[in-house]
C-alpha cells in the first residue's frame, strides 16, 4: 500500500494505492492521525487507486470521519471511489456518512 498526502489551501488530499486490509489498515490509521494531529480536519480521500478494502480498513475510515466531524471542525470527503470499494462501503451501511464525489478536484473545491 502506498500513501501520498498533499496539503492544499483548504484541505489535505490523501491518496492511497493498493490494498487496505488488517495488515495495512494501521498505516492508514497512522496517516489520518498525523493529518488531524497537525490540525487539519478537512480531508479529501481519493480512492481511485484502492484495489481492495476489508472491514478493518472501513473502520479506520469511520474513525477518521468521526474525529473530523467532531465539533463541526471538518469532514472526510471521498472521491473517485472504485465500484467494488463503493459496494463494500454500501454493504457496511457507511455511504450515508460520506459525501462522495466523482473527481478529487470537485471534492477539493467543495470545501
Amino acid at each position, binding site marked *: 500500500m502506498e500513501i501520498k498526502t498533499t496539503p492544499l489551501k483548504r484541505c489535505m488530499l490523501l491518496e492511497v494505492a493498493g490494498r487496505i486490509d*488488517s*495488515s495495512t489498515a494501521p498505516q492508514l490509521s497512522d496517516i489520518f492521525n498525523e493529518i488531524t494531529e497537525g490540525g487539519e480536519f478537512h480531508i479529501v480521500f481519493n480512492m481511485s487507486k484502492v484495489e481492495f478494502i476489508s472491514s*478493518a480498513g472501513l473502520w479506520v475510515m469511520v474513525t477518521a470521519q468521526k474525529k473530523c466531524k467532531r465539533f463541526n471542525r471538518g469532514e472526510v470527503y471521498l472521491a473517485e471511489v472504485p465500484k467494488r470499494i463503493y459496494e463494500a462501503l454500501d454493504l457496511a*451501511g457507511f455511504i450515508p456518512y460520506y459525501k462522495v464525489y466523482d473527481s478529487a478536484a470537485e471534492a477539493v473545491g467543495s470545501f
Partner: protein
Amino acid sequence: MPLAVFPANFKNLEKIREFYARAARSAGLDEDAVYDIQMAVDEAAANIIDHAYGGENRGVIECSYEIIEKGIRIVLHDHGKAFDPDLIAPPDVSSDPCSRKPRGLGLYFMQKLMDNVRFSFNGDGGNILTMEKYKENSC
C-alpha cells in the same frame, strides 16, 4: 482437494486472497465473484487470527477448496478457540457507523457475499469454516 497452509498472521492475508482468487478463476467464476470471495476469505482469516487464535502467529490457517458443479467450495481450518457465529450480533447497518462498535462486520460480509456459510467445531480439531460461491447462472 488443493491445500495451502499459512501461518496465521495479517501479512499472509494477501497470499490467502490470491490463493482463492486463482482457485475461483479456475472454477470459472467471474471477476465480481472472485472479488467477493477475496473479501470473504480476508474477513474469515482475519477473524481466525483475531478471535480463534487471539493474535498473530499463534497457529496456522489451512486453506483448501473444491471445484463443484455450481462454483467453488472453500474450507478454512484453524486450531484455535471454538467460534460460535450465533454469539456474534449482526451489525445494524442502518445505524450511524460513528456510534457503532467496530465488530461483526466481517461475519456479515461473509454471509452477504457468499452463497453458503457454515461453521463447525471439531473438539481438538478446531474450527472448520465452509463457504460456497456459485456461478451467476446457477442457484
